[in-house]
């Protein structure tokens, strides 16, 4: 259950758990759960009670009706029997007039008698008196049925016939009762035709809650009385209803109990009914109520349950909301107060709005805040004082910026420390761990003899204890202090001393010894102050070391910078000379070459017919050589200008640069039938012209160094550790890996000019371009398997 609640709460409030929310839901769950539980317990029993009460109501009603009908029938039967007796007496005395009078009297006394008569054993009518019809009017139906009934009747037993209904009358039933002795040959019977209007009146006047109705069925299951008399006159039968069948079986078994159940009545309405069987006549008395109305009260109860639960939940929610607020708001206020205190607002007071535990807590909180405020003020005062002291001390203890050594530095500090601590003497020593000695940095008030005597670190001595433990040792009375093994200080008149660890970056590097001629001077209450001074000393040492290192670094840096300046100057001068060379090469060297080329060509042209073949060949060689020289110079110039004539780096779309390179190589691409493909190419910071030259050189080589099939060149690109790594792959002749570095050297060729054109400067230019851009270029290849040139450009 707890986990369920926790999960529910996490679902409902996925954010940080809130006490208020938790309290709210716990209260809701508790209160609402209790309401739900109570209602769930109450509802089934309420429904059961409704059903039970309806059944009881119906049972009471049907029993009441049974009683009324039984009384009426008993009255009818009683009157009938009485009249029969009187007939018998009159017959015995052959008093025919008397018979008629008896009959008239009987009909007057019993309104249900519609007709009375006497028939003989052979069916002859000896008397008939009708309420409406004259005696001479034949009513064969009544006589016929009476005769049949009489034949079935036993002595002194009234037989009830079937209920008869015609279109011209109301329903009626015939009774018969034999007269005379069984031994008599002439067994006469008395019959009576009973009008069932009284039964209809009973049905019409029946009232029960929820539109309850009564019906009476004859022994064949046919309606003989009902609230809706038209159903009776239409002679509806309910014999096929399961409930009626059960009732008949119960009657056959002579069981007189009530039978309850549901069925669909003659009007097609589902009803809940209670049935009771009469013994004589064998009629069924039925009391029914429409299920819809019965269930309506149950539905009302369910709705009541739902509404009550909803109302209960709503009230619980409201109470939970209020309670959770009332509980948590003071806590939230306390939290706010705590936050205020945390931010330093010690004047903040929490409102005390109740007199319960939370109110007490708020009061205590305010008292605590007040105490904190006072304590803070006191502390601030102390801190301010101590800060002032330390600040003053620190100011006085600041190292001289112009101290050339740490000893010179502490020499200046020792006086200040003596002044700050009130000591009579101070000794600053650094610990030489290797030699186990204490080297004096500075001292004041001690004799050199003492300093020398105590230089060696003795196990168990105060210095060794302090160095080992890293904790200060304060001795208000040197003489009485057993921790001080060597009490040489006493000789010099010192009564009290303090040994303080000098720590730099957490490591004890030395000891500060302070002594006083006053006994009881260095007491424990001074420990914190002395340790503060010690820490300051440690900072001083550390700062001095840093400063010293910095000074050294600065000096080294200055020296390096000066060297770099000289180198830069040298480079500038070199570049300038190179540029001048390039200029010279481009103009001054090329000019004579052009002359050589031009005049030798002129010679060839002018004196073609006059020179022999050798001469012409020699002139050709000279022209070729000059041209080649020109090419070399131009390439060299281009190589040199990679660095000197490079443009500023801008956003360079490599795809566009590639397009430009491919445009320049169009003729070669078409001639070779090459296929050029590429990956998506990025934009990099580069010299666009030089990038174009780089791609053109690499692709040009791929086209040139093909192996007989159409070249396929692919330019790939991927990100690699902060740089773009490009690849130019081909399916050409490949390169032996041993020459992977050599091919990038200027004018280095792996093939002759006759095999492949070129000066051997292309890849050197590529390398220089890549290196200018801060990248690298390299090759992966095998002979006959194409070449993969990679170069990287910083991203």
């Amino acid at each position, binding site marked *: 259950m707890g986990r369920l609640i926790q999960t529910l709460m996490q679902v409902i409030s996925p954010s940080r758990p809130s006490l208020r929310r938790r309290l709210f839901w716990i209260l809701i769950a508790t209160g609402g759960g209790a309401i739900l539980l109570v209602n769930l317990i109450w509802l089934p029993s309420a429904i059961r009670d409704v059903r039970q009460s309806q059944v009881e109501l119906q049972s009471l009603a049907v029993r009441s009706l049974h009683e009324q009908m039984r009384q009426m029938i008993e009255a009818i039967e009683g009157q009938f029997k009485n009249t029969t007796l009187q007939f018998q007496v009159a017959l015995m005395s052959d008093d025919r007039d008397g018979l008629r*009078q008896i009959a*008239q*009297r009987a009909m*007057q006394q019993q*309104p249900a008698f519609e007709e009375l008569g006497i028939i003989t054993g052979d069916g002859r009518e000896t008397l008939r008196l*009708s*309420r*409406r*019809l*004259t*005696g*001479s*009017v034949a009513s064969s139906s009544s006589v016929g049925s009476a005769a049949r009934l009489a034949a079935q009747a036993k002595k002194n037993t009234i037989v009830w016939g079937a209920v008869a*209904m015609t*279109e*011209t*009358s*109301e329903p009626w039933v015939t009774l018969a009762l034999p007269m005379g002795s069984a031994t008599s040959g002439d067994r006469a019977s008395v019959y009576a035709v009973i009008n069932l*209007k009284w039964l209809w*009146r009973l049905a*019409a006047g029946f009232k029960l809650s929820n539109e309850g109705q009564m019906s009476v069925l004859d022994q064949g299951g046919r309606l003989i009385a009902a609230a*809706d*008399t*038209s159903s009776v*006159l*239409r002679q509806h039968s309910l014999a096929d209803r399961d409930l009626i069948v059960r009732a008949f079986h119960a009657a056959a078994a002579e069981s007189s109990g009530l039978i309850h159940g549901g069925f669909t009545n003659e009007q097609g309405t589902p009803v809940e009914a209670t049935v009771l069987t009469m013994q004589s006549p064998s009629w069924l008395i039925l009391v029914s109520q429409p299920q819809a109305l019965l269930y309506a009260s149950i539905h009302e109860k369910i709705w009541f349950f739902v509404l009550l639960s909803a109302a209960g939940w709503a009230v619980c929610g409201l109470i939970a909301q209020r309670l959770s607020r009332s509980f948590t708001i003071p806590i939230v206020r306390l939290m706010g107060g705590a936050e205020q205190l945390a931010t330093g607002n010690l004047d903040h007071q929490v409102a005390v709005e109740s007199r319960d535990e939370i109110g007490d807590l708020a009061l205590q909180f305010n008292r605590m805040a007040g105490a904190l405020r006072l304590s803070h003020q006191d502390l601030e005062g102390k801190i301010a004082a101590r800060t002032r002291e330390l600040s003053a001390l620190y100011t006085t203890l600041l190292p001289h910026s112009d101290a050339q050594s740490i000893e010179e530095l502490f020499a200046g500090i020792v006086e200040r420390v003596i002044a700050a601590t009130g000591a009579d003497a101070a000794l600053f020593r650094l610990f030489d761990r290797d030699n186990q000695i204490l080297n004096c940095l500075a001292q004041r008030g001690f004799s050199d003899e003492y300093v020398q005597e105590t230089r060696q670190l003795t196990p168990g001595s105060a210095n060794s204890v302090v160095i080992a433990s890293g904790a200060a040792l304060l001795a208000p009375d040197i003489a009485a202090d057993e921790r001080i093994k060597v009490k040489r200080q006493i000789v010099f008149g010192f009564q009290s001393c303090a040994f303080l660890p000098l720590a730099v970056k957490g490591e004890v590097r030395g000891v500060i010894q302070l002594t006083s001629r006053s006994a009881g001077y260095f007491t424990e209450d001074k420990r914190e102050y002395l340790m503060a001074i010690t820490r300051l000393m440690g900072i001083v040492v550390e700062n001095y070391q840093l400063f010293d290192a910095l000074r050294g670094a600065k000096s080294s840096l200055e020296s390096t910078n000066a060297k770099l300046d000289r180198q830069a100057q040298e480079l500038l001068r070199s570049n300038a000379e190179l540029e001048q060379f390039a200029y010279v090469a481009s103009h001054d060297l090329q000019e004579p070459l052009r002359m050589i080329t031009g005049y030798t060509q002129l010679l060839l042209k002018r004196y073609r017919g006059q020179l022999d073949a050798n001469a012409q060949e020699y002139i050709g060689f000279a022209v070729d050589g000059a041209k080649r020289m020109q090419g070399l110079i131009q390439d060299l110039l281009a190589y040199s200008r990679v660095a000197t004539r490079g443009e500023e780096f801008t956003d360079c779309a490599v795809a566009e640069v590639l397009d430009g390179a491919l445009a320049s190589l169009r003729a070669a691409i078409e001639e070779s039938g090459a296929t050029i493909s590429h990956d998506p190419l990025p934009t990099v910071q580069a010299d666009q012209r030089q990038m174009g030259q780089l791609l053109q050189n690499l692709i040009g080589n791929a086209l040139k160094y093909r192996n007989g099939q159409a070249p396929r060149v692919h330019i790939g690109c991927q990100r690699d550790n902060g740089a773009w790594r490009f690849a130019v792959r081909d399916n050409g002749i490949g390169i032996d890996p041993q020459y992977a570095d050599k091919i990038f050297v200027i004018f280095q060729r792996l093939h002759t000019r006759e095999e492949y054109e070129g000066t051997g400067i292309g890849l050197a230019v590529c390398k220089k371009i890549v290196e200018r851009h801060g990248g690298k270029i390299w090759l992966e290849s095998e002979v006959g398997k194409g070449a993969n040139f990679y170069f990287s450009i910083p991203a």
Partner: protein
Amino acid sequence: MSNFRWTKLMACAVALAILLAAPAWAGAPVIGVLTPGGSYESVLDGLREGLAKLGLREGKEVGYLIEDSKGDVKSLESRALKLVESRPDVIFAIATASTLALKKATQTIPLVFTAIGDPVQAGVVASFASSQNNITGVASMNAALSAKRLEILKELLPHLKKSLAIVAVKESSAQFSYKYLAEAGDKLGVQAVRREISSDGDIELLFRERWSAMADSVISMPSIFAVNHIATLIDKAKREKLPLMVFESSHVEMGALISYAGDFRSFGNQAAAQVARILTKKTKPADIPVETPERLFLSLNLATAKGLGLKIPRNFLDRADRLID
């Protein structure tokens, strides 16, 4: 508070009370009544009484719109039309002629009749079980009872040979009743002497005749005409020293010798249950069977008998339901 303010307050209270009560009255169902008047008045009294017992009190839960023809049979049709035009919720018809006039005037407004001798023979309903139209009611069975009445008269007057039967020829109820009477007379050995009346003039003529020379008893055939002239009839019978058998016990109280019939007031009571079902449960008249009188009463006027010099047998006295001195 000033007088003016009190007056205003009271006026508002009264108006409010009226407003609250008005809907109850304004929306109350209306029962139209077509009655021949005269002694049929007790039928209407019985209806009022029966409905009041069922919670439908006149002027509160239900209203009445009454057309009294005062015995003028000819005016029944026009009165029926007038009643139908007023669109009551249900119409109550007393006697055969009224019912037939209303049946002609409407086939939709529910109609409840009483004091009809034989509603099937009169063409008012198809059968007792269901009228199959907008009509139902309580049949008086007076037509068939005419035979029984002759039997009872014969019993009272064993030497009875002839009986004067006054038949209002314009009313079918009288015609049917006479038919039963004549048949019974044949079997009982009593001759039915038929005298027809259709107007006041006929009554005058009839009353000028010497009845004692024609018959030794008089039987009144049920009709509106007879009811409206019953006092004159009773007086004539007394003067002729003839026993008069009537079809309504209140007429015995008026001086007729004997009656065997249902009770007008009880007819009204009985019909009230049917009217209530139609008004409250909206039951169709075709679903309400026609009823017969719950009880038939044998009424005897001893003073009239004494005046006629008749000795009433003991058994008659014993079985009489009502003895009037």
